[in-house]
C-alpha cells in the first residue's frame, strides 16, 4: 500500500516506517497568559527516517527538544510546521479515526515510571485501559493479552502482579509495567524517552536489555531518547545528535562513536566518563557556555558560541546545511564542507 513515492518526494520503500520532514514544534511564549512574546523552538526543522526494525538513538543535552520531538511523534503536540509520514501516509491528513489507529501503532515509554502509572489503578487495570480504548471488550481476551504482556516483560508469574498498585512495585518493576503497557497494543514503533534515567543504576542494564530483546524479537522500530551516550553503543543502530531543536550529526553507532565529525558530538563524547581507570578522576565537561536559548537561538550555526573551532565570519552568519560524509553519515558543520 505504501510502496510508491509520495507527492512530497518521500520515497517510502517498505522498509521505511516513519519519515519526518522539516518538522517544527514551537510553543508560544506568553506573558501573563495573554501577550505573546515569542516562541520556544523546541523542535526546529528535523528531517529523518526510521526503518522497520531499527533502533535509533536521539542524543542531546537537557532541553534540546528530545521530549518535544517524542510528543510530537506521538501526536500529543501538533507540529507547527512540517510533516510526519507513517507507512507512507501523512499524519496531517488524518481524521479522528485514523489518528486513533495511528496511536495504536506507537508505544510510549516514559522517563519516570512511577509518574507514568496511575497510582490509583492496579496493574491489571492499567494494562486493560489501552485494550478498552481500542475497542477490545472481551474480558477473557483482555486477560490473556495482559498476562502475555507481563510475561514478555518478565514479570512472572503474572498473577503476582495483576492486583498490585504501582507503589507496591520497585522502580524496575514499574518500568516493566510501563513497557508492557506500551507493548500491549502490538505497536510498530516504540518511543522510549530516557527510559532508564530515573532508575537505579543496578536495574538500568536489565531494562535496557529487556527493551533490546523485545525490539529484536518483535522486529520493532525503536526511538531511544537519551542524554547519555554511554548506553547507546550496545543499543542503537543509528544515532542522531540533537542540539537546540535540530539534528547536528547522524551516523551509524560505531561510526559516530569512533569518528565524530561535529564539534558538539566530539564534546559529548569527551564528556563521557573514561573507561580507563587511570583517568577516572579526570573531570570532563561539556564545552563552556550556556545551552542556547530556544526563544532566540544564536544566528548561523547554533553551536558557534560554544564551538572551539568556530570560523569567524561564517559560522555566526550562515547556518550550515547537513554535509554528507559517508553513506548514512552526515554532519551540519561548516568544517565538513567538501572543499
Amino acid at each position, binding site marked *: 500500500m505504501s510502496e510508491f513515492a509520495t507527492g512530497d518526494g518521500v520515497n517510502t520503500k517498505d522498509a521505511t516506517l516513519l519519515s519526518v520532514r522539516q518538522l517544527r514544534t514551537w510553543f508560544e511564549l506568553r506573558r501573563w497568559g495573554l501577550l505573546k512574546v515569542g516562541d520556544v523552538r523546541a523542535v526546529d526543522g528535523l528531517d529523518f527516517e526510521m526503518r522497520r526494525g531499527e533502533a535509533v538513538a536521539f542524543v542531546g543535552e537537557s532541553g534540546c527538544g528530545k521530549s518535544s520531538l517524542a510528543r510530537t511523534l506521538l*501526536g500529543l503536540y501538533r507540529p507547527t510546521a512540517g510533516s510526519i509520514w507513517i507507512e507512507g501516509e501523512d499524519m496531517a491528513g488524518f481524521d479522528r479515526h485514523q489518528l486513533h489507529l495511528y*496511536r495504536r501503532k506507537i508505544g*510510549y515509554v516514559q522517563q519516570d515510571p512511577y509518574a507514568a502509572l*496511575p497510582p490509583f489503578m492496579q496493574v491489571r487495570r492499567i494494562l486493560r485501559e489501552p485494550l478498552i480504548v481500542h475497542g477490545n471488550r472481551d474480558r477473557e481476551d483482555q486477560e490473556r493479552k495482559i498476562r502475555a504482556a507481563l510475561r514478555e516483560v518478565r514479570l512472572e508469574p503474572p498473577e503476582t502482579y495483576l492486583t498490585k498498585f504501582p507503589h507496591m512495585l520497585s522502580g524496575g518493576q514499574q518500568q516493566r509495567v510501563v513497557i508492557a503497557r506500551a507493548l500491549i497494543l502490538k505497536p510498530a514503533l516504540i518511543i522510549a524517552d530516557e527510559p532508564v534515567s530515573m532508575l537505579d543504576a543496578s536495574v538500568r542494564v536489565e531494562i535496557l536489555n529487556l527493551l533490546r530483546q523485545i525490539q529484536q524479537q518483535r522486529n520493532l522500530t525503536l526511538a531511544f531518547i537519551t542524554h547519555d551516550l554511554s548506553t547507546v553503543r550496545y543499543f542503537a543502530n543509528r544515532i542522531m545528535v540533537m542540539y537546540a531543536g535540530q539534528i547536528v550529526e547522524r551516523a551509524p553507532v560505531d561510526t559516530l562513536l569512533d569518528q565524530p565529525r561535529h564539534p558538539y558530538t566530539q564534546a559529548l563524547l569527551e564528556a563521557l566518563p573514561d573507561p580507563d581507570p587511570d583517568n577516572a578522576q579526570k573531570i570532563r565537561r561539556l564545552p563552556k557556555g550556556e545551552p542556547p536559548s530556544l526563544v532566540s537561538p544564536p544566528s548561523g550555526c547554533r553551536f558557534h558560541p560554544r564551538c572551539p573551532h568556530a570560523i569567524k565570519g561564517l559560522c555566526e552568519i550562515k547556518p550550515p546545511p547537513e554535509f554528507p560524509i559517508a553513506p548514512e553519515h552526515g554532519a551540519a558543520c561548516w568544517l565538513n564542507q567538501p572543499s
Partner: protein
Amino acid sequence: MNRWRAALQELKKYPTAVAGLLLIAFLLGLSAYAVIAIPYRQALELWRGGEHWQAHPRNAAPAWTNLFRRRKLPPTVRLDSVDNGLAEQDELAGLRRQRITLPFTFNYFDFPSEINLFLETEFTRKTPLLSIRWQTPDGRQIDLGAYRPLRRQRLSLSQDRELAARLGHPGHIGLMTGSAESEHPTVLRGDYQVVLEILHFEPGSQLRADFIVYGRVHGLAGTDHQRRDLLVALLWGTPIALLFGLAAALGTTLTTLVIATAGVWYGGRIDAAIQRITEVNMILPLLPVLVMVGTLYSRSLWLMLAVVVAFGLFSAGVKMYRAMLLPVRRAPFVEAAQAYGAGSRRIIFRYMIPRVLPVLVPAFVTLIPTFVFLEASLAVLGLGDPLLPTWGKILNDAQQQSALYNQHYYWVLTPAAMLMLTGLGFALLGFAMDRIFNPRLRSD
C-alpha cells in the same frame, strides 16, 4: 465502586458518622411524613392562617413543656353544645325555652389565655334570645348578659370591655378567680359551668354553641401569634430545607466541578478567564446580593436557589478543585493515556474526577447545611419565601413578635433546634467521610 462500598462500611465504625446518618435519616423520615400527612397545597393553605385556626390559642407553648413545670399550664378546653351540652327544653305559647349547660373542670395554676364562644344560629325571621350565665366552683353566678346572636357570631369574653370593667380584670381572668378584687388574682380551681338560656321564637330555630377556654400550651410545637400550629412549619420546613440545601449544594458542587475541570482540561485562555471570573466572584458577597434580589425583585425560594447556584458557579471551590486536578492533568500517566488514544471523556471521568471525589463528596455533604442556614437567614431577614412554611419563617415571626422578650422561648428554640440538628447531622457525616476518604488528613 467497591472502594465506595468499603468506605461506607468503614463509616459504620465511626460513631459520629452513625449519629450523623441517624439524624439525617430522622430528618428524611420527618420530610416524608410531612409531605404525606399534609399535602403541599394544604400546607400552604394552613400556613396562610385565618379561620381554620380559630380554636387554637395564641402563643401557646408546646404541651410537653408542662413536664418541666411545677405549675402546669392549662391546655385548651373546648366544649361543643352538641356533644357536651346538657340540653333541656320546654315549650310554652309558641315560645321554646332551651337551656344548655356546658360544664368543665379547671385544675391548673394559670389562667386561660382567652375565652371565646362561637355561636351558630339557624332561624328564618326571628332571632332567638340568648342569655349567658357563668357559674364558678364556689357557687357564684355571674351574668354575662343577653344577646341576639347573628347567624355566625363570636362572643369574646376576654375582650368584653363591659365585663372586664365589672370584674376588674379581663374576662378570662376575672371569671376564673375567686377574689375578684385582688391585685394579683389567683386561679380558682374546680368545676365551672356555662349556662346558656335560649328563647326560640320559631319552631325550627336552633342555636349551636362552641365554647372554648383557650389554654397556654398546645400540641407538640405550640402556636404562634396567628394561632397557627407551629408543627405545620416545623414539619414542612424539613423537606423544604433539605430540598433547598441539597439542590443548592448539588448545583454549586456540580457546576463548580464542571467549570474547574473545563479550565484545567482546556487550559490557556479558557483557564485564565475562569480564574479571573472566580477571583472577582469570590469577593462578591452572596448574602447582600441575595438581600438585594429579595428586596428589589422577588423572594421566591426558587429564584434564591437560582442566584445561589449562579454564584456557586465560580466559587472558591473552582480554585480548590483546579489545584487538585491540575497535577493530574499534567501527570505523565495522563499523557500516556492520551498517547495510546484515550479520549478526553475517558480521561476526565476515569482519571481526573475520581481524584477530587474524596474531597468533593464530604465537602458536598457539609455544604448542604450551609445552604439550609442561608435560606433560614434570608427568612429571618424577612426575605423568606412569603408562601412557604419554613423554619426561617418561624424565626422571622418570632423576632417580629419579640418572642424572647415575651418569654415565648419555644418559638425560637424549636426551629433553631431543627436547624442545628440538620447542621449537626450533615456535619458529623461529612467530617467522618472526610476522614475516611482522605486518610492523610487524619489527625492521628
